[in-house]
């Protein structure tokens, strides 16, 4: 099987993550729309997962047999997802310039409809991706495929009831080939999650639902990489795995950090220049 080669050198991965952050702010700036905050916060996770952890076939196919599968549930952070896929080699990085434009494969929220390599499920309307990931994990079990299914959700997204339907199902059916990460940046559109709709003790909630709970700093490359690697290699725990991944919304761009205002606002020209000055070019801009 031809998988993309893995990179586990931390400074190399950090270079890629910084480039993904440059892509994110440039993509969102170019169309003056999109969601930079959550995208920036998850750049380290995406980099670790796609470059250091998953077995990903170089030639994309929808069924994802004999490879690890990732589904993005919080589809609005599509800029981070698209940049990661392009930088990994699924499609040319030049196509990132078409983000959110007419006739593009890079829709505002991820879609399979235009045939973009790397996307297996439309997402954007929140709360559905975890269930879909469970379905993909069940298919792997039926196929005797030892690879894993990874899924990322937002933390505000946990306010959707379907998430807890899925949580109950995965524990009941012992879906232990599923590794879910929650982007715990504590922000959502209308404000901090504790003000909009308190999520309470998330670790206790997931444990009570029968999951094995892990915590990690999602902006510490070494920490998130080693935890994802460990969970990928782990077998037959009998329990679905969840990482409460603490991140900073807007990570890497100081004026965007920790503020829900940057959930879905694009930077203007001078803000873009300011942001790019903080993000050293690594692999070359698209």
């Amino acid at each position, binding site marked *: 099987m031809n998988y993309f080669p893995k990179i586990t050198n931390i400074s190399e991965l950090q270079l890629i993550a910084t480039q993904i952050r440059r892509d994110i702010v440039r993509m969102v700036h170019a169309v003056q729309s999109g969601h930079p905050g959550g995208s920036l916060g998850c750049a380290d996770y995406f980099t670790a997962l796609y470059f250091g952890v998953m077995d990903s076939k170089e030639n994309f196919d*929808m*069924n*994802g*047999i004999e490879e690890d*599968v990732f*589904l993005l549930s919080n589809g609005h952070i599509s800029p981070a997802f698209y940049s990661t896929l392009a930088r990994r080699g699924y499609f040319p990085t030049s196509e990132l310039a078409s983000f959110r434009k007419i006739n593009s494969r890079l829709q505002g929220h991820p*879609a*399979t*409809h235009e045939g973009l390599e790397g996307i*297996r*499920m*439309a*997402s*954007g*309307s929140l*709360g*559905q*991706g*975890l*269930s*879909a*990931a*469970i*379905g*993909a*994990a*069940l*298919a*792997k079990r*039926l*196929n005797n*495929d030892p690879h894993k299914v990874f899924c990322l959700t937002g933390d505000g997204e946990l306010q959707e*009831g*379907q998430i807890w*339907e*899925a949580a*109950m*199902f995965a524990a*009941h*059916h012992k879906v232990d080939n599923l590794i879910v990460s929650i982007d715990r940046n504590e922000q959502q559109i209308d404000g901090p999650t504790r003000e909009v709709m308190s999520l309470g003790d998330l670790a206790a909630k997931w444990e009570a639902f029968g999951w094995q709970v892990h915590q990690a700093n999602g902006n510490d490359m070494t920490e998130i990489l080693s935890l994802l690697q460990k969970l990928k290699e782990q077998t037959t725990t009998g329990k679905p795995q969840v990482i409460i991944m603490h991140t900073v919304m807007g990570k890497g761009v100081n004026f965007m950090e920790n503020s829900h205002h940057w959930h879905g606002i694009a930077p203007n020209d001078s803000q873009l220049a300011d942001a790019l000055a903080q993000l050293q070019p690594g692999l070359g801009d698209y």
Partner: protein
Amino acid sequence: MIQATDFPVLGTNDTRSGFGDGLHLLGKQNDKVVALCADLIGSLKMNKFIADFPERFFQCGIAEANMMSIAAGLTIGGYVPFTGTFANFSTGRVYDQIRQSIAYSGKNVKICASHAGLTLGEDGATHQILEDVGMMKMLPEMTVVVPCDYTQTKLATLAVAKWDGACYLRFGRPKVPIFTTEDQDFTIGKAQVLVEGTDVSIIACGHLVWQSIEAARTLAAQGISAEVINMHTIKPLDEAAILQSVNKTGCVVSAEEHQKNGGLGDSIAQVLSTNAPAPLEIVAMNDSFGESGVPEQLMEKYGLTANNIVEAALKVMKRRKVHPV
């Protein structure tokens, strides 16, 4: 010429048993077929599939939204998921999941919906969905199939498994006459002309097909030659069959166990008005909710019987300006 009297009652059974038996056959024929249910195994007649293929069945509990998205995910890996629950919980309750995770994502999921319409009976209007066909036919890339009896529902279940893409398969609760045979030509998107006639076209789906045949018998006794078309596929609609029939008869009655808004009659009206304007009478629920009662009482109270089809035929023939034949 095939006549209404050519359809003897071969027995009675519920259409949901046709689904259950079809699913069980599929289990044997296709090891990629998997089934999901939301705490309604007995109602959906899924027991035989579950007994013989337990590893390919997933009990979801009372959580239909989760079931729909899991079904979408199971296609990643090459499976053909069949979801089973009441029509109400198969559509309105989970519309966004179907729209985003199944239809827009191009997933090959078969949404199998029982207890549709008024004939659900005593449980009342909370469960009697009469808007489901409209919701599902509005979704791009969704196929909508409404078979007419036990045998046809079994064949339709086999057919949707072979159809590439998302399907909505609608069937019902009560035991009704069986009048189609195992050797019928059942092709998705191809209407069946059950009775040939020249005076009026009766185009029906689901439980109303048998009522249409009975209506054609009554009309024949009055010297009126009615054509009866079983439009088991609402989408893609067999427009050619409609136009061919109306070209002979010049007027149409549609009949269905669904709201007028969004139903089969609505789709036929679009075809007629854009291709061959002709009077149409729609026998369907007239913008109201149902209520508790036995199915026959309900169908009579809300005007969905053979008699209503006869009245509609007599009315529509009067509205016809010139008989084309």
